[in-house]
């Protein structure tokens, strides 16, 4: 079978390996581009949130490359992601595309449904190949995120502008071709060392935490390379959504009833009364955690009309005030202009710099540059 998945940041590297190990042909759509978005907006309902539009674009581009089966994530709860798969199937059908869709939903304490969906994938090489595939995919996922983490740390400290970006790109390509577990580890270690070697060590940059809707946080095409932009403005980025972490908590621990997010609910006491869908609760909880840590500011990013994050957005100003932590919400969709986005980031970084300098008692010689 020729199997494809929609893009979400660098997740495709892990999924590609999994599909391959299970004896199928992975068809990875071209990276999200203007063409993807154009296709997606053309065939999606106008008012749906941005991720779905890009998914549709990815699917159509993958089908063009010969994909027969789509693996799609599902969801439950008040976020529209739960409706994505059926609506997307209807759209593809209407367009006369004969593709199948395998929908993977968070198990919510019951693994049976998930396994029955997956069984269509391991029909070919058996359950063993699935276990092995998962192992490789898991290692690749961890490696990707460790590389990204290193890049976040080095970017504001890089000796020559742009080097980290190039090295990361190269590292991810190498990782993509690494087939065995030991290759993955080797590539990871080598490349992390390469990236770290690009850093100037005696710089103490500002730190900005990023919270928000998972797809927007992870997909650089949607967030206009937010992490890279901040890095280039001399800011160390602390991302809070890591897939490694997500998979651990929501797939493993949750299915064993060991994780239910109660720690987050507790954290947001006084602001929210529980789960609001998507990552809304996380956004608020993590912002509070940032306030207790050594973080200078928080950027909250969400797609236009994202319901869970709108709830978070309306609560965050209170968190910001109570903890004296600057928080800026950025809303993105297909109409987002790059200039305005950059202006907001620059102004926010200026604000944080001034605030930090004020803290370190330079109040007398006020300088803005």
């Amino acid at each position, binding site marked *: 079978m020729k199997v494809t998945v929609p893009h979400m940041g660098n997740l495709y590297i892990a999924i590609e390996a999994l599909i391959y190990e299970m004896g199928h042909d992975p068809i990875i759509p071209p990276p999200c*581009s*203007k063409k993807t978005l154009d296709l997606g907006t053309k065939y999606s309902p106008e008012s749906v949130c941005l991720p779905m539009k890009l998914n549709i674009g990815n699917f159509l581009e993958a089908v063009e490359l010969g994909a027969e089966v789509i693996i799609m994530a599902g969801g439950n709860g008040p976020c529209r992601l739960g409706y994505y798969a059926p609506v997307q199937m209807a759209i593809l059908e209407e367009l006369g595309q004969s593709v199948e869709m395998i929908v993977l939903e968070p198990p919510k304490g019951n693994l049976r449904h998930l396994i029955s969906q997956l069984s269509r994938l391991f029909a070919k090489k058996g359950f063993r190949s699935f276990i092995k595939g998962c192992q490789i995919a898991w290692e690749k996922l961890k490696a990707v995120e460790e590389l990204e983490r290193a890049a976040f740390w080095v970017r504001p400290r890089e000796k020559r502008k742009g080097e980290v970006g190039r090295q990361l790109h190269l590292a991810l390509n190498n990782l993509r071709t690494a087939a065995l577990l030991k290759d993955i580890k080797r590539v990871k270690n080598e490349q992390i060392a390469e990236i770290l070697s690009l850093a100037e060590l005696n710089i103490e940059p500002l730190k900005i935490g990023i919270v928000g809707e998972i797809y927007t946080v992870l997909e650089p095409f949607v967030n206009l390379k937010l992490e890279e932009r901040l890095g280039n403005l001399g800011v160390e980025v602390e991302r809070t959504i890591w897939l490694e972490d997500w998979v651990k908590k929501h797939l493993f621990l949750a299915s064993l009833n060991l994780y239910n997010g109660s720690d987050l609910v507790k954290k947001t006491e006084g602001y929210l009364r529980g789960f609001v869908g998507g990552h809304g609760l996380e956004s608020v909880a993590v912002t509070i955690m940032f306030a207790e840590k050594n973080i200078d500011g928080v950027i909250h990013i969400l797609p236009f009309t994202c319901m869970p994050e709108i709830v978070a957005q309306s609560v965050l100003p209170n968190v910001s005030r109570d903890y004296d932590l600057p928080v800026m919400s950025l809303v993105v969709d297909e109409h987002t202009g790059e200039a305005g986005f950059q202006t907001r980031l*620059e*102004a926010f970084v*200026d*604000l944080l710099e001034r605030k930090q300098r*004020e803290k370190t008692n330079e*109040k007398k010689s*006020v300088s803005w*540059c």
Partner: protein
Amino acid sequence: MKRKVYLGVDVGSVSTNFVLMNEADEIVEKLYLRTLGQPIKVIQEGLKLLTNLGEWEVLGVGVTGSGRQLAGSLLRADVIKNEITAHSVAACHEVPDVQTVLEIGGQDSKIIILRNQVVADFAMNTVCAAGTGSFLDQQAARLNINIEDFGKIALTSTNPVRIAGRCTVFAESDMIHKQQLGVSLPDILAGLCEAMVRNYLNNVAKGKEILPPVVFQGGVAANKAMKVAFEQALGLETSVPRHFDVMGALGVSILAREQVTKKGKTTFSGFEIIDNKITTQTFECHDCPNHCEIVRISDQESLIACWGSRCGKFEKVANIAI
């Protein structure tokens, strides 16, 4: 004798403003020009007008506004700053204890909250340009009045009519509806000002703590009726600084002075560029499906800047401090 000045340039969507500031941070000359979609031309024209006004030794250059990258490359500016920071600096300069800045420009509007001369929070209009200068411009043109007279006429209103201000399209149809009912022009204009203020406070200033002193600046602050509408809605006195229309340029010239004091010498390209042939070339890159539009800017055949690519492979921005 040449007078020593710092040059601040704010290249906005609607207007391009120039400020020459002396070493005591006082404005010597200012220009408010219409950008008319041709930022390069207007920058050259502005410089030319400035040279007609006197002889200057430029000690430093700062640029801001949505065209700041372009202006920065062209002038080889010492500082390229975003509008928020530039406007805050200028507001602090004019009203040192300012706590709230309301700024309405051509295409965007912002609110800046300052505490102890430090920006504590800010917001810009997000998805909609309703309630910005361009809309007032359009409506003035439609009603065949000079934009300069807008405020004056609106202030003669005795009973401002209520206009739906959520969206410019609806605002316009509502205005036409009121006009066809026979409502007088001043009442419609005053109503429009109130609607814009309402829209601004609900969208841009939503949830912000507006404390006095409040400074109202940007091109729209020329409209006296807007100031009155703000004061009524906020219940606070609002001041419009002397140089309300060139605050961005003023702010960035102050920043240029600070920057040059720190680094010693300006990188300003000089007034010669007035007569240089600045050319821009645009092409669509077909190396990937993004089809980015790449802009190349040359000054007398030599490439001074290039941008527009998502991947960054064409990016060349003149060597300047940002």
